């Protein structure tokens, strides 16, 4: 996949390829101009306007952003999303890595295990959310299972209301997301593990390194670029969580599981406040951008590239 042979020869513009080049990119470029460039410009414009049911009503300066900062529901959605990020991202990386290391051994059945772990990834999230509504219902299978485990251990059990209490609703979303996405992390990690040269393990083994030491000092540093990629990728995904709370908990109870993108959707299409929703989307973008830059800056400390 690497670009090698193509751009070797001397570069000169050919008149016959000039117009052909434009023709070839034309369909793509038109769509790009309308649905990406125009959309971004419009979105920024709307966020600084008063925009209601009938469309543009006048410039509003920073009013939408100021309203947002004073809106307790926005802050609730903001902290819920922060909760999703700090739980989902590390748990998913850890579980995905454990699965990948387990599958990177000389055992039978690797293909089958991988097939199973990846199955939720291709599943329609709406269907996944519906099943978890059933699994996590107060009288559902998960609570039945927990009750019997507690029963065997002789501990009194009070069934948690996973979906209907503000203590558990966010965790329900986390559980669904982990089930859905960990297989993705596993596959990417597995590909990275398979790229670690065997000689390095042999050398470490000869030097008397234990399995844990080999993992800690050979494997982890060598796959750190993958960890970095997954970290950023999953973080951006968690910032934009929508379907999971939308279908499973409707953001409730009392907004306890409402995500920012879900609130953007509700502001735009339930409250018909396109202006406020657009402002929220830009706040989200700024946060994603800032966090990505920050991670990119800290990566020097823990990501090892082979050329170093």
């Amino acid at each position, binding site marked *: *996949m690497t670009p090698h*042979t*193509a751009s070797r020869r001397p570069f000169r*513009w050919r008149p016959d390829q*000039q117009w*052909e*080049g434009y023709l*070839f*990119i034309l*369909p*793509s470029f038109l*769509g*790009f101009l309308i*649905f*990406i460039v*125009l*959309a*971004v410009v*419009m979105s920024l414009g*709307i966020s600084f306007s008063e925009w209601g049911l009938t469309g543009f009503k006048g410039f509003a300066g920073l009013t939408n952003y100021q309203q947002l900062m004073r809106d307790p529901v926005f802050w609730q959605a903001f902290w819920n999303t922060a909760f999703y990020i700090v739980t989902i991202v590390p748990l998913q990386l850890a579980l995905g890595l454990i*699965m990948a290391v*387990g*599958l990177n*051994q*000389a*055992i039978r*059945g*690797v293909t089958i*295990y991988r*097939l*199973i*772990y990846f199955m939720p990834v*291709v*599943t*329609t*999230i709406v*269907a996944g959310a*519906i*099943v978890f509504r059933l699994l996590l219902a107060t009288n559902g299978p998960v609570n*039945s299972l927990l009750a019997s485990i507690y029963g065997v251990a002789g501990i009194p059990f009070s069934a948690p209301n996973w979906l209907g209490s503000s203590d558990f609703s966010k965790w329900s979303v986390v559980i669904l997301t982990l*089930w859905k996405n960990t297989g993705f992390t596993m596959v990417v990690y597995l*590909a990275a593990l*398979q*790229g*670690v040269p*065997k000689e390095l*393990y042999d050398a470490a*083994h000869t030097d008397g390194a234990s399995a844990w030491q080999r993992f800690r000092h050979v494997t982890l540093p060598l796959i750190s670029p993958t960890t970095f*990629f997954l970290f950023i990728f999953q973080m951006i995904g968690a910032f*934009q969580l*929508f379907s999971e709370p*939308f279908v499973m908990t409707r953001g409730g109870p009392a907004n306890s599981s409402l995500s920012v*993108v879900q609130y*953007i*959707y509700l502001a*735009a299409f339930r409250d018909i406040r396109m202006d406020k929703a*657009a402002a929220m*989307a830009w706040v*989200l*973008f700024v946060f994603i951008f800032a966090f990505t830059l920050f991670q990119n800056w800290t990566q020097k400390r823990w990501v090892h590239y082979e050329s170093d």
Partner: protein
Amino acid sequence: MTAMTGSPTRMSAPARLGLHALLIFFSTIMLAPFGVMLVVSLIPNSAFLARDFSPANFSLNNYWRTFEVVPFSRYYFNSIVVSVSVTTLQILISSLAAFAFARLRFRGREAIFLFYLATLMIPFPVTLIPNFLIIKNLGWYDTYPALIVPGLFSVFSTFLLRQYYRGIPLDFDEAARMDGASSLRIWWQIIMPLSGPVLATLAIFVFQGVWNDFLWPLVVTTSEQMRTIPVGLAAFVGQYATAWDLLMAGSVIALLPVLVIYVIGQKWFVQGIALSGIGGR
């Protein structure tokens, strides 16, 4: 793809057993929701609530009833139309542009491509509202073009194909040009056939994403006739919140095609993920 590369020592028998136990434990967690879905879809709601799983209760009745109360066949039809058109057209449009970016020489090529790349960072919620307004103004609200057209332009697909096309030697093009072939012909008869695997991988990747997409079809459709499967399913939950038998049958119906494609084309899916990893770096 063998799994042996990273592990120098063969494991002892007890260690292997322990590992299998762990991997089977994970498998159970991953599979259990599918199992519950299937079982509950085959028995009446009352039997599920009473945890009565006697064989006499099992039947396909829920499936027939689901098709009666919800126009699932219409949802299916819509999902197929949208997924197939977006996948085919997006790949053709991206491939044409990628061919130009990789193999034709024209003024502004690098600048335009950099402009494309710069927009990769923009999250979907930013363009959601203006695109909804654009669709409304075009008079496309609640129609197939609303579901299809915005999905045809993908910077990511263009980027991925351009990277691949850059790796194919330019001598092919030169030789064909000597024989009088046009650029269009070089693209269609030389470059496209040479990129079979990457196209297949990309196609599965795009198809799966469009089939499962929820937010966009939710926003641009309102009538029952225009719903795709995920939107139809979500509306179904709104109407029949605890009719588990019907909901599970509906979920199985929604999942079946994509799971079948996945099991058959597993290799391509996994490669697709590896590709997305490369794209992400």
